[in-house]
């Protein structure tokens, strides 16, 4: 019988799926808002703007849930998400070599998951960039753009509307790129859906160390 580890607590799973659907909605509606003549997801610009605003609020709230849980309840936010010196000096290269070379030769995954060390060095780096830089940046620029009139002073203070929109757009593209990579790497388990199931149930089936590559 395979060993099972409880890796993903309920608050994290709630955050993850709120975040996932929220960001997919933001990407689709955002494409329609920026390119209305090419991307007609809803076919109604006003609905796209409203849904984009709503999804933005949902992602902001779910980010708050994630932060409060890890920072004040589980109290392992930094340990889980900030790469250690070992991660930076050796872990990232080791993991990159695995994904880019060893994996195709059937080699073992150098990272072994535990509840206190869920992410490999590359995951930590990517997630830290997403959660500590990109999400706050997209939230701040989004809130300012939703309230251009009332927060005009702040809009001007950070460089004006076009700078905000440029930053919001580029971070959105990073999210979109991350989404492709993230979903693809999640299929690298012992079956293509092996890593999707635990994100729903919370339990990871630790059949083989090389399974855990999301």
């Amino acid at each position: 019988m395979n060993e099972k580890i409880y890796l993903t607590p309920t608050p994290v799973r709630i955050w993850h799926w709120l975040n996932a659907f929220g960001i997919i909605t933001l990407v689709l509606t955002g494409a329609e808002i920026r390119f209305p003549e090419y991307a007609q997801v809803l076919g109604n610009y006003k609905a796209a703007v409203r849904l984009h605003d709503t999804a933005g609020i949902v992602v902001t709230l779910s980010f708050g849930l994630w932060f409060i849980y890890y920072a004040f309840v589980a109290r392992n936010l930094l340990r889980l998400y900030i790469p250690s010196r070992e991660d930076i000096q050796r872990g990232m290269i080791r993991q990159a070599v695995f994904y880019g070379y060893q994996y195709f030769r059937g080699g073992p995954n150098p990272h072994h998951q535990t509840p206190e060390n869920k992410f490999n060095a590359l995951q930590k780096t990517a997630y830290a960039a997403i959660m500590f830089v990109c999400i706050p940046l997209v939230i701040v620029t989004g809130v300012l753009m939703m309230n251009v009139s009332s927060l005009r002073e702040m809009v001007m203070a950070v460089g004006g509307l076009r700078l905000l929109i440029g930053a919001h757009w580029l971070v959105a593209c990073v999210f979109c790129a991350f989404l492709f990579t993230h979903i693809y790497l999640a299929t690298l388990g012992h079956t293509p859906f092996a890593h999707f199931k635990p994100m729903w149930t919370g339990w990871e089936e630790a059949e083989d160390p090389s399974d855990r590559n999301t």
Partner: protein
Amino acid sequence: MSNSSKRWVHRFIWVTAVVFVLAAPWPGGRLLAHAWDTEDCQGCHADLSILEDGGGYLYVDSARYERTAHAEVGCPSCHESVNEDHPDDGVRPSRAKCGECHDEVEAEYTESIHADNATCTDCHNPHEVKPVGQVSGAQMNRPCMECHEEDDVVASHEAWLSQTTRHIRALPCITCHTGSKVYVVTFYVGTFEERAGRSPRVALATHEELMAKAERSEGVTSVIDRDADGRVSVEELRLFYREGRAEGLQLWGMMTPEVATHNYATMDNRWDCSFCHASGPGVVQKSFVALPGPTGDYTRIPVEPGAVLDALYGTPDFYMIGATRSKTMSLIGLLIVAAGLMVPLVHGTLRLLTIRKRREH
């Protein structure tokens, strides 16, 4: 009586009859009465002293009047009852009804929701009225704001319009509430004053303010049309953005209708945000820079065709989502997305090609 005497009597009777007929008080009569012309009227009504005597409502600014289409037909065309005794006769001159000439507009307006609440002259001063292309967006809104206060307008649009206050302040009401099919982007020159810790104070530049910065011999247009070729190129716009900021000038872009119909209906496509918020071959492909003249009316200079979106994007603090995106930023963003897409494509392909080897291990 001799024949000669008879002829003189006949002539006298005929002349008397003709004079009587021409001077009679019926339409077509009074041809021999004193004939007033516009110049006569302006002798008193354009004299500023009339204001000092409490006759403000009788004053007509002749410079503004001369710029109206009504000047072509002259004062007596509308005030035809004025006679030689005016103003001593104490009779208030007749005033033509607008519908006598503008019958189609009147018919359209009568059917509108405004007809029960305002007459033509509540919104239009016939002595100053100008075509829609000769007024600023703020001037277009002035008659609307006589009845509709901004707070009420914002409240009534909030239910469906995002960024309501911003839209209401950035657009003339008739951008949506008129049946014009043709729209253009009109840039107005604004002055701004930097204020520490606060947003700049911005106002439409007056003719005098622009003349102070213009080549005086070439007139107000020289502030932007540097080569005086009668049109504004993208390069001239860029130059204006670069140098104008230092001189306290900037451009405001507004979407304005080419004609103003009087049914005030909101056409179906105005509810669709992408009517404005779209680039490519849409309605915002033609633009002008509008500059104020000494009498407060505006003269438009066409902007180089096809440069509207570049021009809009170059306007400081102006961004219209969906319409004024930066091509460079779009390209960088799409390259980031493409890079993200390459990971599953390249890795996935190698994964498929090495499936046998991985199974062996």
